[in-house]
């Protein structure tokens, strides 16, 4: 990615139809309002296993409501499909859409493991995953700093994220069920951070050195992991993620000549840069997202531009296959495994 997505070009009087699979909050509060603002697109149906939800949401956007009864063949044709259902139940829909050669915009995480990810990439024509934090201003700035080596080589990266507090889900929510969610905190939240690392260090090799997971039943609730990353020389990335105790959320990049700190989970977070000679530097931008909604909008724009301007968009990069690989490797390397 070398800048903002280019303006999405559509032919006159044409609209791309977007089928919505999953009528939950992420579709109703985020994706559909954003799709309303995307030029050349319109929602064509809303599908859900809950008929009432599907109908309610479809009515708001003047499109068809589809009751999903585990039969993906009933899905109407569309130009792009949004997959906003739990990762554990996506397979039949992704297979069906793969056969139809329909491009898919998939909510994170893309899939549960690297083997499945690779299989999907064989069958899907075009796909992206909603790793929208790559469009956060702080992520873009970090990437620029790394690319340009303005503060020298990277010497180390330290990431920590505490998620103690209200989870905001009820007892029946899919996130309580690792079969539906694909995992716990690593799959739910860690995937975003890893997608940011993948994006910022796109030119670097990253491998899991060691990993430690805490479990609550079959849900991972805390993670400590160390990666080895390298390009011209190796350095360590430490990543701590926990639901069990308070922890300041922060990413710190240590360069030869400066440190850069930012709250990587905050769209509006600005990197704080301290150079070795004591200077404070700040970056301002007006091109990238400073809110969650803006970031999702840019992610959509990116995908639509890729579809329109390039017959073979980089599906590995759009779905962040390396994020899935790192998650799989962490689960494999963890000293304590899921029961």
């Amino acid at each position, binding site marked *: 990615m070398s800048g903002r997505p280019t*303006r999405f070009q559509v032919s006159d009087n044409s609209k791309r139809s977007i089928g919505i699979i999953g009528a939950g909050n992420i579709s*109703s*509060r985020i994706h559909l*309002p*954003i799709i*309303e*603002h995307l*030029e050349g697109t*319109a929602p064509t149906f809303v599908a859900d296993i809950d008929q009432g939800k599907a109908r*309610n949401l479809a*009515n*708001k956007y*003047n499109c068809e409501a589809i009751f999903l009864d585990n039969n993906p063949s009933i899905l109407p044709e569309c130009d792009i499909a949004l997959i906003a259902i739990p990762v554990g139940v996506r397979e039949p829909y992704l297979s069906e859409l793969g056969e139809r050669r329909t491009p898919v915009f998939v909510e994170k995480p893309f899939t549960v493991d690297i083997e499945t990810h690779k299989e999907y990439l064989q069958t899907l024509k075009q796909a992206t995953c909603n790793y929208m934090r790559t469009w956060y201003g702080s992520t873009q700035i970090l990437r620029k700093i790394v690319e340009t080596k303005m503060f020298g080589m990277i010497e180390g990266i330290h990431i920590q994220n505490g998620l103690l507090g209200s989870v905001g889900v009820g007892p029946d929510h899919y996130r309580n069920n690792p079969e539906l969610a694909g995992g716990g905190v690593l799959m739910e939240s860690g995937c975003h951070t890893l997608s940011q690392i993948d994006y910022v260090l796109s030119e670097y090799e990253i491998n899991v050195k060691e990993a430690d997971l805490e479990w609550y039943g079959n849900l991972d609730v805390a993670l400590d992991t160390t990666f080895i990353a390298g390009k011209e020389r190796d350095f360590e990335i430490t990543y701590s993620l926990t639901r069990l105790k308070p922890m300041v959320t922060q990413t710190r990049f240590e360069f030869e000549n400066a440190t850069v700190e930012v709250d990587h989970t905050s769209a509006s977070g600005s990197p704080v840069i301290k150079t070795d000679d004591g200077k404070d530097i700040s970056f301002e931008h*007006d091109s990238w*997202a*400073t*809110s969650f*909604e*803006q970031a999702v*909008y*840019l992610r959509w724009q990116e995908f639509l531009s890729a579809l329109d301007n390039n017959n073979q968009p980089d599906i590995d990069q759009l779905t962040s296959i390396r994020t899935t690989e790192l998650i799989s490797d962490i689960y494999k390397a963890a000293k304590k495994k899921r029961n």
Partner: protein
Amino acid sequence: MTIGIIGANSSVGTELCVLLRNAGLRVIPVVRSTLASAPLEAHGFDCRVADITQKSDARDTLADMNTVVIAAYAPPLPPHGRPRQARKVNEALVKHAVEFSAKESEIIYLSSVMAFGDDIYPDYENTIYPQEKQNLEEVTLKATNKTGKTGYALRLGHVNGPTQDWTRNIIDTIEKSEELVIQANSNKFSNIVHSVTIADAVAICHKEEPKSGKYTLVNQPQWSWRDVFEHYSEDTTIKFTNPTASSSTSIIEQVIDPLKNFIESHRTSFIPYMVFLPEKLNDEIIHRYRLEEINEEITSLNSDITFHMHHFDHKPAPGPTLPKLKETHNIIQQEEIIKDLFNLD
């Protein structure tokens, strides 16, 4: 056959004179003062200087006119006018045009889509303008009906043309930037009318004499806001950011719009009462607000330059329209004659 244009020195009147003359019609500009006649005389028009509110002037000036276009309008509000006085002047212009024009003539009153009032402009603050335009339409049609002449009240959309301030404003805004973000629904009908279409309409009334009545006059077919801005942009990338309009007219929608306006102005005191509202209504209110919140987020993201005019919020003007109008994009090149005459780019 002669077409007289009362108020020919107005921005619309001037362009009409040029376009109708170019179409081979005999055009007589009618203005109130020698000073007002100067720019038209300088471009080869033989103006008649007369105060049409005076019967004697009207009798002397309009007797040979087969079609009279009333492009003059006395503004009813300060600093330029007073309501009662303006109404008297405006009614006199119409009545004298009807009384003193040639037998069996056509009288064309240039009204405005603003006459639709709240139907298309819900938040328009200048409520006297729609009222006065509606009144003058009625005066025109009653007076022509009484005298056996044919009367037309043409409700003009937002007039665009090479010398129009509105048009210059759009062109200047576009030329200022490489990328312009328009806070409008790109597919929404704009209610724009180019002066070439106004001239076409006058020519149709003059030659074809369609049935008397009120007609909406906007570009044919209606131009969307995308059509308008892309017409004027050469190198500037135009982006739009606004949700597409819902075509639903459910009961809830009919309740929500005025309720939403009320909520907007009484937000702090209203929100606590939402706990008592039916869930479906709350759901719809929240949905609408979410759309607006997202709109603001995306607009601020795209704020290279964000351009908004209140016209973007107006609803498309309903018909009927005059029959046999030519498609605007097929005749728009006639604007070149105006640009050449006035040395415009």
